């Protein structure tokens, strides 16, 4: 029975994926390329060699965390799309904490921990602010998170090109760099930085939180019906704050990883869209923290393989963007099928009664 339910839940996204494959093949034909060859190249560039796998995983790493920035608030019924802001602000906060810690001569583990805490705290504050505005002031969290993202990116640009600018960074304004010895390392034997591990751990933790803790359960109850949640005595405001803060922590940590493992310094190059791609990943994963993992890898793979289409088939650079756009549209369309698709195996009997809510346990209020 569980398998059937799982199949029903996964059928729409799988159908969307198939429809995308067909639609993109038509696009490729129209562009004068051989779809089979193109799909072969996408496979080669994304997963075809060990190098491709590393390339894919490195690109997937930040998406794991930024996708959580959307998937977690979705559990409590909030559509938060400001991961980009948490990412950039987290990165800038991380370097702001990391440089003085490095100057103190602390060992790498302390510097990196300090950076991670600073990044997570900043991200948490930003996203939790959207949750608080929503709960106590009734401000639409989708709009507020997007606006807060714009503002924080602008403030961060101002900081890295002004107060925090390294005077030696003449033509590319950026902060001073973290010493190489203090950078977040790679998984031994690979080019993949440890941010991937952090991302995986966070996804699993988020999954456990959402589906195997009382707090997560309470959050989902509020997400399904906030009024009902309030009626049974759940601390809705506190739950919203916690969940949005956790989401912000994930995006801030992603920014910290980008600074500590990849860029080494903060610059305007932090805002390159990892936060926005995370939205796509979260949607494709149907907001499930565990499903974020394969989807982020798929998305990383698409990005990794875009170059081969351009180089070998002389397709325009927007080709992979078209594929992503098609995927997103098909996915949104397939959402309408959710719940309407019934596999024959299952009787059309009324659905199982919803599990009873136990307010005494839920939320610990």
């Amino acid at each position, binding site marked *: 029975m569980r398998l059937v339910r799982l199949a029903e839940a996964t059928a729409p996204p799988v159908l969307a994926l198939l429809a995308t494959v067909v639609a993109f093949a038509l696009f490729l034909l129209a562009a004068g390329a051989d779809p089979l060859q193109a799909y072969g190249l996408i496979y080669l*560039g994304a997963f075809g*060699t060990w190098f491709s796998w590393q390339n894919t995983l490195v690109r997937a790493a930040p998406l794991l965390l930024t996708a959580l920035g959307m998937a977690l608030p979705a559990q409590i019924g909030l559509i938060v799309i400001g991961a980009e802001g948490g990412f950039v602000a987290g990165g800038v906060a991380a370097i702001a904490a990391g440089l003085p810690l490095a100057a103190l001569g602390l060992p790498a583990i302390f510097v990196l921990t300090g950076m991670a805490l600073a990044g997570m705290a900043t991200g948490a504050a930003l996203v939790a602010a959207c949750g608080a505005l929503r709960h106590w002031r009734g401000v639409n969290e989708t709009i507020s998170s997007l606006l807060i993202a714009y503002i924080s990116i602008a403030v961060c640009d101002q900081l890295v090109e002004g107060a925090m600018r390294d005077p030696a960074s003449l033509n590319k304004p950026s902060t001073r760099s973290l010493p190489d010895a203090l950078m977040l390392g790679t998984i031994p034997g690979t080019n993949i930085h440890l941010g991937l591990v952090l991302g995986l751990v966070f996804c699993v933790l988020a999954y456990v939180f959402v589906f195997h803790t009382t707090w997560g359960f309470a959050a989902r109850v509020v997400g399904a019906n906030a009024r009902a949640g309030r009626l049974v005595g759940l601390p809705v405001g506190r739950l919203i704050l916690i969940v949005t803060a956790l989401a912000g922590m994930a995006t801030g940590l992603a920014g910290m990883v980008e600074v500590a493992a990849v860029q080494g310094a903060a610059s305007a190059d932090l805002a390159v869209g990892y936060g926005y791609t995370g939205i796509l990943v979260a949607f494709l994963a149907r907001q499930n923290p565990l499903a974020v993992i394969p989807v982020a890898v798929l998305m990383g793979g698409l990005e990794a393989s875009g170059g081969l289409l*351009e180089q070998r088939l002389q397709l325009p650079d927007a080709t992979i963007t078209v594929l992503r756009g098609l995927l997103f549209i098909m996915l949104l369309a397939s959402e309408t099928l959710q719940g309407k698709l019934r596999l024959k195996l299952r009787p059309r009997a009324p659905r199982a009664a919803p599990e009873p809510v136990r307010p005494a346990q839920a939320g610990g209020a």
Partner: protein
Amino acid sequence: MTSGSGFSRRAVLAGLGVGAAGLAADGLVAPAARAAGKTVVGFIYVGTANDYGYNQAHAEGAAAVRKMPGVTVLEQARVPETVAVQNTMDGMINLDGASILFPTSFGYFDPFVLRLAKSKPKVQFLHAGGLWKEGEPLNAHSYFGFISQAVYTAGIVAGHMSKSKKLGFIAAKPIPQVLRNINAFTLGAQSVDPSITTTVVFTGDWFLPVREAEAANSLADQGADVLTCHVDSPKVVMETAEKRGIFCTGYHTNQAVLAPKAYLTGAEWNWTGLYPRLVGDLIAGKTLPNMIRGGFREGFVRNSAYNAIVPEAARKQADAVREQFMAGSFAVFKGPLKDNKGNTVIGAGTTVDEFDLVLEQMNYLVAGVIGSTG
């Protein structure tokens, strides 16, 4: 093909809906180019290759390299200045056997080109930006052109054409290379008429078409009658000038088709001349210097052909200065030179050579520029 994963190829292919295609990915790994013993040269751009600007200038250079015998060219556009560029370069090396790479965006160099150059000592990296420093990998090279020379000659033409004596400059960020162009443009125009002023608007980033259009319109409203810019894609600035019935001079590459009436001339990179030369040298086994810089004299920059409406006097003066640049007998920055706050920045009798690194640290706008670096 090595596959360190537990995934079977079939499963992934099926997942992508290609199941029965039976494509032998192994055959795709070793491209025909490598088998034929060709030199594979990769070009990487930060924006689209047909932006009428920075990236197109590089793509035109790549097209010139493509015409060389025995060379295969790979191109990838819209690669951000993140680990993506490192992976893209690594991919070109690993999957396509590239031995010469042109990562063309400024921010690619540190840390991405440096990092990869260390681990791939046999690959030659030619980065646009002029950033190489002593102690950095010897297979990393950074080149740059003194385009301010070509901006100066364009400024001469602008100075001749302006009736209002007000010029407009739309710039991305107040960084040394941009300030150098604003100053060169103004000095060129002032060599025609010292009363000419340039109003500068900084947009804050390299590609903000909406803000660039707003800035162009606002400059036109303020009476500027020749516009130019230093942004990645001058497209909207040129189109706005045409629409507003004023003049413009181009930047990066030739934008005459966008503004047939307004486009007077432009300052262009001559990558079509330089790139085949660099690639040819490497194929011939020569060692390139790590810092490769030059202006008109070295063939790194050029001007767009004059619009038919540019009068003889303007052409004559601009051509004469260009010839002096070619002969190495002209300097844009020489004393006495004051900034727009009244401070003397270059003392009387001092001439600053284009190669002098002090110009790479320029932090002032010359007298006659309306705007501020902060």
